């Protein structure tokens, strides 16, 4: 005889399902809207939904400047990810494991970039780069390195945040066991500590990549005549007029992002984000 689900449990399941459905609609709705609307094309200044016809014309007409800007953003995000991890991982290990006064203060300082509006950071970097240019002859405004430094400033707190969370949940006894069994300090770090921290590292790296890729307020001030990031290029286009090709390139970026998420799931599993938690 089959068991009947109790009524209260059924109600809870239905309610949970409804809440989940609403959450999915809110989160995914705009993305689905953009994807569907991208399959229409015409010389117009507004979005048509639902599309009046189905065509890939928007995709064929994507201007070269969007591809160039996308490539700049991908490279910049990759460099930012590496730099933010190179700074954030050792910093987090040092802050969590270290025994010194002012640990909380140092951790708070690492979160400062999150508290400062990005526009303010952008103007500050603009001024700083001009001052540095006067002093050293190196001009950061409009340079890849200048953008990378600014993006690393914005992304490092996310790496520090995920790593601190991962370290606070770390079981020290595993490291102690490795040391007791004869492993060197560096050997323990490379073969025990970092592999166990891998979910946190991946999470922090992915956040850093996403933060850099989507960054607009600072980049608006720091991009130059020959160096434009993808979000800034799209932002500048949208400020003046609407182009249907924006929908097409955005859909392509979404598809690639979904592929990356799938890849992450295959490599480390997405549940690491739940374990590690958000950056702040």
């Amino acid at each position, binding site marked *: 005889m089959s068991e009947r689900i109790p009524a209260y449990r059924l109600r809870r399941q239905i309610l949970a399902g409804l809440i989940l459905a609403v959450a999915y609609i809110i989160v995914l709705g705009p993305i689905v809207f953009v994807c569907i609307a991208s399959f229409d094309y015409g010389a117009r200044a507004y979005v048509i939904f639902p599309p009046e016809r189905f065509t890939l014309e928007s995709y064929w007409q994507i201007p070269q400047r969007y591809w160039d800007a996308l490539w700049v953003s991908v490279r910049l995000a990759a460099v930012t990810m590496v730099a933010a991890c190179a700074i954030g991982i050792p910093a987090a290990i040092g802050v969590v494991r270290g025994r010194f006064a002012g640990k909380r203060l140092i951790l708070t300082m690492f979160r400062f970039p999150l508290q400062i509006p990005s526009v303010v950071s952008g103007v500050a970097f*603009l001024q700083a780069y001009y001052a540095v240019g006067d002093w050293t002859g190196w001009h950061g405004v409009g340079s890849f390195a200048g953008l990378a430094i600014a993006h690393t400033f914005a992304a490092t707190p996310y790496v520090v945040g995920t790593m601190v969370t991962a370290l606070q949940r770390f079981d020290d006894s595993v490291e102690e066991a490795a040391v007791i069994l004869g492993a060197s300090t560096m050997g323990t770090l490379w073969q025990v500590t970092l592999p166990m921290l891998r979910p946190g590292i991946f999470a922090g790296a992915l956040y850093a990549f996403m933060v850099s890729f989507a960054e607009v307020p600072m980049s608006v001030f720091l991009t130059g*005549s*020959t160096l434009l990031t993808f979000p800034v290029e799209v932002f500048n286009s949208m400020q003046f007029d609407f182009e249907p090709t924006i929908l097409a390139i955005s859909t392509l970026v979404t598809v690639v992002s979904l592929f990356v998420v799938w890849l992450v799931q295959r490599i480390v599993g997405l549940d690491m984000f739940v374990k590690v938690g958000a950056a702040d």
Partner: protein
Amino acid sequence: MKALQRLAYALVLGGAAMTGDPAFAGQFDGVTVRVATFGGKWRDVVAEHVVKRFEAEGGKVEYVLGQPSTNVAKLIAARGREIPFDMLEAMDNNLPALKAGNFIEPLTLAKIPNVGQLDKANYDADKVMIWVTQEGIVYNKKAFADNGIPVPTKYADLTHPKLKGKVSLPDITAGGAMPAIVGMAYEGGGSETNIDPALDLVRKIAPASFWSSSSNLQTMLVNGDVYAAGAQAGNVQRLRSKADLGIVFPRVKDKNGVLKQGYLVQIKGTKQSDAVHWLINAFLAKSMQMAVFHEAGQVPVSAEALDDIRKGGTYDFLRLRPEEIAGMYRIDFTKVDEPAYVQKWNRRVSR
């Protein structure tokens, strides 16, 4: 033989003069000019109708893209150092900051012969106007007729009960904000120095939304989410095939409607002054001025372009005669305290 040579030189010079370019081909070999201007489609228009011709003269243009206010911020940050660009496309509201910061290099108008096509009020030694937008109330004729709403003649008409939830006004950050705010201020007895009547009217209108970009507004107008909006006439032109829109220009002081103006200025410290003058002249050439209208949706300022547009199509919703354009209000931005107005807006126009 010498006479023949002289004749040949004269023919070459005469031919060059007739092209309308006050210079010879190839004269800008190795010259790069940094132009601060809008991105997106506008850049394409500039590239097609101005930069291509400059490149044919051997020159090269590097774009510094962004809103004028962002580019002005870059200029301020670079004060006392190498300038970030040689030429800036600015709007009327940027001029006081540029003047106060001593960023403008005066122009030699003799090197810009196409200014002869402009009304004298549209240029001076510091700046040359290249386009205007005509700001008023854009409305959906069919929606108004179907719902029995009288055609608005002033901003206060947007408080009509049947327009509740069907009006959009520009957000304080939008380019069309100041024209609408100043227009509403004058309507309520205020001015550029007193926008309180405008903020009161905005609260009374209780718009359904505050648009921040033209594409955002145009989507709402086409979808019927909005029947009326404080916006510029270019929206009527761009959406003609999709919606039957009209525009009214409310009384502002002793004028009708408000003009928003786009200018080109030469930046102090530029080493490419000749090239900058050449480019400004090219912006005023007929092909670019016609492109300003047909491709970018703004109103040109060149007399021959305006004349062609009047003759070429039905644009009765636009002010295309010089006396009509002169009858539109120009905001005195020296009296406008934008940062203070933004704060007032944020405090009093809650969203």
